[in-house]
């Protein structure tokens, strides 16, 4: 055990985490030249394209250190995004140390700080690395000062690297061996193994990625999971290199995988503890929690007849993503679909994109919202994750919404504009600290609903990409929230209803109405578009009645063309959604998602 090192990498997006990991794998000859490609650990197309890590991965390296010993290094690669902070925390829990990678040109970012704090809280040994020192814009000394300020290390402890040019890689490997402590634990003690991720394999079912803390797990062992009471048999056990390598057993300190005949990833929950059925541990490892979605949205098939296909796709998707929840939902406007819960906006985007790409689904999504707690005058407490379920305004005593503590790191020049954005988003300003004279670390509290939508894009654009952002959930608070409905000729378009702060309702209603006016084609009658809170109409606009629609010429040579137009018109109509006597094009629902708050 004393020659094992388990570690992860903390880095902001684009700071070079994947390239550095590639460098470590190369240096330790874990991969052959034939297997070489960029972002080795990111196996999904989406991860490569976006340069992000969505799933956790683990890979084992063998490293012959300068002290002459052969070490087993387990790198656990984690997703960096705040949506997946629970997964991150469980991956951190599986390690004894972390590489903190900071881009020499960008400096410390919000996400780096929050993940770093998670690592420090988990008691991990931190190895600071400044990456991309070869960049012309590198400001290595400034970044050094930021890091020293942040973790209180000595300047000499900071490793300077350029992962792209493979500079600093040997130093990093030595630091891993020398600074990160070996795992503690007792091979003879009752089994405690932490699941830090699980993936779905079409042939084998759920594959749990585990870190053994105490005891030994062997194939054919009868095992159980603390989160539920089923018993299983350990069918296959091994370690993770580029693929799975069967070793038949794992001991305290080891990182590897376990296949146990479990159908899907819902029974191999991240954070759960595995032990033996007989003579097992009394207690699970600390830190397990059921993760709950933070953001909800309706997903509807573009063509109503594709509902069953979408259900199949979601069922399959769920095999590999235990955090996605969904339930059938019916909308008068959009037909049959699903109310889906996501960990956050990135998670939502990923799910949508993968459904479209990997499962060939064409979907319309409704405006995302958070989960509200509504207290009625009768004293009931109702959880509302869909505006359609909001009680009548007259029956509501008060509404509470989730709040988050947010941290924004940006160059000090942008403090003013960030403050302004914070105020627009109903933020409560807490304080500002300076990482160095040029970098501010601003703290706010926000209603979650204000930041799930376009906050990050706005922040990025007003800071020319320099600001970074992270948040954590802090609880529910009362707010003056109302349900805003959109009506077409008096009929509610349920898919366009939203729950919004009263002060913002008028502005929102006006924007949606004018967008709809642009996109709803003229009908043979006038269409009134209204935004209303309860029975009170707060804005109104109209689509004028169509006065003329007829092609002037239709002779021999025009007939084919005219028929094709008709066919197109028919197809277009088929894709329209109908509310009352008004036909709404799909684009209208999508366009509402683009409206800037």
């Amino acid at each position, binding site marked *: 055990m004393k020659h094992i090192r388990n570690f992860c990498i903390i880095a902001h997006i684009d700071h070079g985490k994947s390239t550095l990991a590639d460098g470590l794998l190369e240096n330790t000859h874990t991969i052959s030249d034939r297997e070489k490609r960029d972002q080795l650990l990111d196996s999904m197309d989406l991860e490569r394209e976006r340069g992000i890590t969505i799933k956790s991965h683990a890979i084992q390296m063998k490293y012959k250190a300068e002290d002459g010993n052969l070490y087993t290094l387990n790198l656990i690669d984690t997703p960096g995004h705040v949506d997946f902070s629970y997964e991150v925390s469980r991956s951190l829990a599986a390690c004894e140390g972390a590489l903190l990678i900071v881009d020499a040109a960008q400096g410390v970012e919000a996400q780096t700080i929050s993940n770093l704090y998670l690592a420090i809280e988990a008691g991990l040994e931190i190895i600071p690395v400044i990456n991309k020192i070869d960049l012309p814009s590198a400001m290595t000394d400034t970044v050094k000062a930021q890091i020293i300020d942040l973790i209180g290390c000595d300047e000499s402890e900071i490793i300077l690297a350029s992962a792209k040019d493979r500079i600093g890689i040997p130093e990093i490997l030595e630091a891993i061996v020398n600074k990160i402590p070996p795992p503690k634990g007792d091979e003879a003690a009752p089994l405690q193994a932490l699941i830090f991720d699980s993936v779905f394999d079409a042939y084998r079912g759920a594959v749990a990625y585990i870190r053994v803390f105490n005891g030994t797990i062997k194939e054919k062992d009868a095992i159980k999971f603390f989160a539920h009471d089923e018993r299983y048999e350990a069918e296959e056990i091994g370690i993770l290199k580029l693929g799975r390598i069967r070793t038949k057993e794992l001991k305290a300190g080891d990182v590897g995988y376990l296949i146990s005949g479990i159908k899907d990833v819902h029974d191999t929950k991240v954070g759960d503890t595995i032990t033996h059925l007989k003579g097992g541990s009394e207690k699970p490892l600390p830190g397990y929690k059921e993760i709950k979605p933070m953001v909800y949205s309706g997903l509807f098939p573009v063509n109503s007849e594709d509902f069953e296909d979408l259900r199949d796709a979601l069922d399959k998707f769920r095999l590999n993503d235990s955090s996605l929840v969904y339930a059938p939902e019916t909308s008068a406007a959009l037909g049959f679909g699903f109310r889906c819960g996501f960990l956050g906006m990135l998670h939502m985007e990923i799910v949508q994109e993968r459904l479209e790409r990997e499962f060939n689904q064409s979907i319309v999504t409704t405006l995302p919202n958070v989960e509200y707690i509504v207290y009625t005058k009768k004293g009931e407490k109702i959880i509302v994750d869909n505006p359609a379920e909001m009680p009548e305004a007259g029956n509501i005593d008060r509404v509470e919404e989730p709040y988050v503590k947010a941290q924004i790191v940006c160059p000090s020049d942008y403090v003013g504009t960030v403050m302004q954005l914070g105020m627009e988003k109903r933020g409560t300003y807490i304080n500002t600290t300076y990482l160095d004279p040029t970098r501010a670390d601003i703290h706010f509290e926000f209603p979650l609903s204000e930041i799930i939508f376009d906050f990050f894009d706005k922040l990025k654009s007003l800071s020319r990409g320099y600001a970074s952002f992270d948040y954590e959930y802090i609880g529910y608070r009362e707010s003056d929230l109302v349900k805003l409905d959109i009506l077409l000729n008096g009929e509610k378009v349920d898919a366009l209803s939203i729950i919004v702060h009263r002060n913002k309702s008028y502005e929102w209603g006006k924007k949606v109405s004018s967008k709809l006016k642009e996109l709803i084609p003229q009908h*043979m009658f006038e269409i009134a578009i209204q935004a209303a809170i309860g029975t009170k109409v707060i804005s109104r606009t109209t689509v004028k009645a169509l*006065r003329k629609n*007829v092609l002037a010429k239709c002779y*021999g040579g025009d007939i084919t063309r*005219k028929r094709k137009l*008709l066919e197109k018109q*028919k197809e277009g109509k088929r894709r329209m959604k109908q509310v009352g006597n008004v036909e709404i094009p799909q684009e209208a629902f999508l366009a509402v998602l683009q409206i800037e708050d």
Partner: protein
Amino acid sequence: MKQTAIYIHIPFCDHKCIYCDFYSIINYDNLNKYLTAIKKEIELRQKDFSEDREIISIFFGGGTPSFMTPGYIGEIINSITKNFSVRNDAEITLETNPGTVSKQKLKDFLSVGINRLSIGIQSFNDNELKFLTRIHDSQTAIETVNSAAQSGFNNISVDLIFNLPDQSKKMWKKNLDISVSLPITHISAYSLILERGTILNKMVLDGKVQMQDSDHDAELYETTIELLTNNRFSQYEVSNFAKENYECIHNNAYWRYKDYLGFGTSAHSFINGKRWWNYSSLNFYLEKMKNDNPVAGEEVLTNNQMHDEYIMLAMRSNGLDINDYENRFGSMWINKVQNDLTEYQSKGYLSIDDNFIKFTPKGYTLCDEIIGRLL
């Protein structure tokens, strides 16, 4: 005998008007080669399509067919008469542009067999004519119509265009008033269409010209229907109006889903549910005619396509003859849309009697919208 119409395309023009998207060329080098090719194409089709057919109409469209000599046109008519059985009372139309024909030339057209003129007046307002880049002025337009009548033509149609940029209702009405005072039997009144690839389209895209909105267009259209109907020109199609017994036989062949043969560049043919069209480039057409195959594309219509076209064409023109429709297609669709039909009737868009469904003037204005919803 299957009634069949023949269309001859004459692509030659003196110049290209800004709104025109027909295939036309302003170079006369290939006039004679073209004549030879047309005659060859007529003979070619004779083999397959002359049996059991009678020709009810011949239509010379363009381009500017009246630029051709009467001898040129006469030769084509002779070729058709030789190869097909043309009815004695067949309608033989020549598209004519004002200013391209003297009284003598008109008489000569009459003597080679032309019995109907379709005159491309477009407007009686000089500013509007200039805008449209027509080669004639209003005076010439009126003179051409009068000359035609004096030369012995008793079936004269004029083409007009409305909803021109800046055209007021008053200006348009004046065009209509002048038209109905002339010795004519037929009027085609088209709302200005922006066609892709026209100079006008480019001008609009470049912001040099602004088109009027569809409300104004609707108003002019409604005015047209009212004024012409009051002057005993009945509407028998979206854009076509005729005195009693002067509906254009050729037009009706298209709209009542009869067979037709087209000869020359870009001409379309429709025989027994199959449609084909010739190459539109003159050079291509001439080249391909060397191998007797000028066809650029074809489609064999499915039953559904024929069904939709039949309804669309019938509804755009004199209305849907329910008996004829049911003989061809059965009654499934009629039953399906029964409620919609009744609703459109009650709202004043359709008139329905025992076996005819026809648009009202209000209905014609929204013809495409309603047909689209019914199909």
